[in-house]
């Protein structure tokens, strides 16, 4: 097998944080005696990622996702452990390495606030030494794809959040990075825009065989963009595999969502499967995946049924469940 693009071994980042109690008195006290607490933001993570993979980093707030991305992109030095990206050690911040990566942070801006976004693009063109004809080509393509024609000449400060985010993406991808780290790229965007950005990322990945690592709290980002998930919690990796596999591992069940003609009793339904939701005229029943057709048929014969839907368990549920299993 080819060598991985990203290789992480026992990577750790511990922060020392000064502790202070509540209120003014504690503030004065902390002048004289300061207590420190060690925060294990990333606590020994390992993984390999190959060229062209689209990986989702998932985990609750404070899990260590952003910290990991910062270390992989070379702006934060690990406490210990090894990371290698495209054969480079990120913390050396080799220009050759920097020209091949990008980190997009949903809430950090690189655009010049008082100037139109195109000025920042030009600066990035110079920084990354993109030849002019190639710059024009890429810019046109990105602008077209993200539907940005109308906003390019207004100062960035006058753009909406979503417009800014799109410009941010353009600025980050002008040099066609081979590895793209995205930290919550769709945060605060409307649904249509989220969809567009997802489609765009997939397209970018396909076209340039780019490796994409993305964190998000929106499961749709994950489902639609990524093939593989890495779940982290408290700075440790708790799951790492293809999304399909995760779903099949956890989704032993399907949900039958039923609307009844007449009121039924919960007890009567429990013979069919596990009642997840119940409302007299409606119910959601979890049944084993392999038997869902049989169970649906059984429902139809035993009750007066208005409508029946067979649903997959949501990825959200699976993720929550897998976090719960690994505590």
């Amino acid at each position, binding site marked *: 097998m080819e060598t991985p693009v990203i290789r992480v071994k026992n990577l750790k980042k511990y*922060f020392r944080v000064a502790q202070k109690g509540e209120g003014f008195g504690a503030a004065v006290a902390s002048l004289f005696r300061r207590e420190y607490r060690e925060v294990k933001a990333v606590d020994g993570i390992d993984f390999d990622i190959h060229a062209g993979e689209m990986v989702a980093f998932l985990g609750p707030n404070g899990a260590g996702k*952003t910290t990991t991305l*910062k270390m992989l*992109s*070379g*702006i*934060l*030095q690990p406490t210990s452990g090894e990371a290698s990206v495209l054969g480079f050690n990120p913390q050396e*911040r080799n*220009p050759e390495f*920097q*020209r091949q*990566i*990008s*980190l997009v*942070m*949903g*809430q*950090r*801006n*690189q655009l*010049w606030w*008082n*100037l139109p976004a195109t*000025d920042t693009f*030009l*600066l*990035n063109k*110079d*920084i*990354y030494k993109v030849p002019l004809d190639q710059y024009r080509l890429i810019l046109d393509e990105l602008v077209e794809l993200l539907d940005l024609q109308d906003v390019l000449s207004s*100062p960035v400060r006058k753009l909406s959040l979503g417009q800014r985010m799109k410009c941010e993406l353009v600025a980050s991808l002008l040099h066609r990075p081979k590895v793209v780290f995205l*930290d*919550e790229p769709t945060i605060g965007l409307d649904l249509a825009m989220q969809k567009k950005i997802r489609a765009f990322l997939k397209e970018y990945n396909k076209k340039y065989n780019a490796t994409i690592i993305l964190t998000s709290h929106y499961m749709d980002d994950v489902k639609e963009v990524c093939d593989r998930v890495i779940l982290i919690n408290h700075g440790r990796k708790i799951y790492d595999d293809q999304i399909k596999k995760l779903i099949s591992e956890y989704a032993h069940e399907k949900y039958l969502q039923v609307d009844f003609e007449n009121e039924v009793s919960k007890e009567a339904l429990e013979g069919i499967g596990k009642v997840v939701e119940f409302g007299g005229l409606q119910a959601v029943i979890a049944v084993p995946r392999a038997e869902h057709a049989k169970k649906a048929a059984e429902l139809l014969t035993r009750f007066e049924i208005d409508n029946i839907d067979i649903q997959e368990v949501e990825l959200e549920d699976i993720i929550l469940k897998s976090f719960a299993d690994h505590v």
Partner: protein
Amino acid sequence: MKYLRTFLLALQVEFSSRINIFGWFLCSLIPSLLLILVWFAILGERESISGFTKGDFAVYYLFITMGWYIVGGTFGISTGRKIKNGMINTTLLKPYNVVLGQCLEEQAWKAISFFLALPIMVFIVFLLRDNISIHLSFGHILLLIVSLILGGINFALIQGLVGISAFWITEVWPVDHLRVILLSLFGGLLVPLALMPSAVRALSDFLPFKYMFYVPVSILLSKNSNPYLDAGIQLLYIGILFGIYTLVWSRGIKKYEAIGI
């Protein structure tokens, strides 16, 4: 050409924001004019003090006011703030020197201020024309320009050091304040070093501060015994400060916490 581009973008920002550079210039002019008046009063009927005539004092302070826009600046503070709140994250990712970028951005308002201030300066010099006498050969002018540039680089390195002290401390302004005091005392910003107590003068020979403003202004006034040596020491200090800067940066960046999101 990325740094040239940075400078050009910063120029555009200055033009578009139209902040009151003019007002700032007038404010910075007042202390200089006051100091000139004070020295005129002290001199009274006397010809000179320690070799400084009325004209010398006028040239000295006016030159420092204008020279500020060539040599001086304040990017240490803004760099420190950006380090503190993680604003350098996005630049640190790129093949781009964060601090040099900050420095180049600052050159924009300095350049604009310089050209806006020039007519006022010419007018003041015209008013004081009877007191001022400067005799410079072409070689002298060349040396003056070189010395200003070297002084500017020295000053920028000190500012860079002030800025990256933010890797260790929460606020950089006290450090910057210290820099101002040292520069006023040992760099001749407040009073020409020639008029300072001998202890201060002796100490200033072993500090970099006089190689920023004082050496060029002395060249202008033809007061250095050996201007070429002075320029050479300026160069030497650039080497030393650059070495220190590089060392401090490489230590600091390891401590950098990349705050934010």
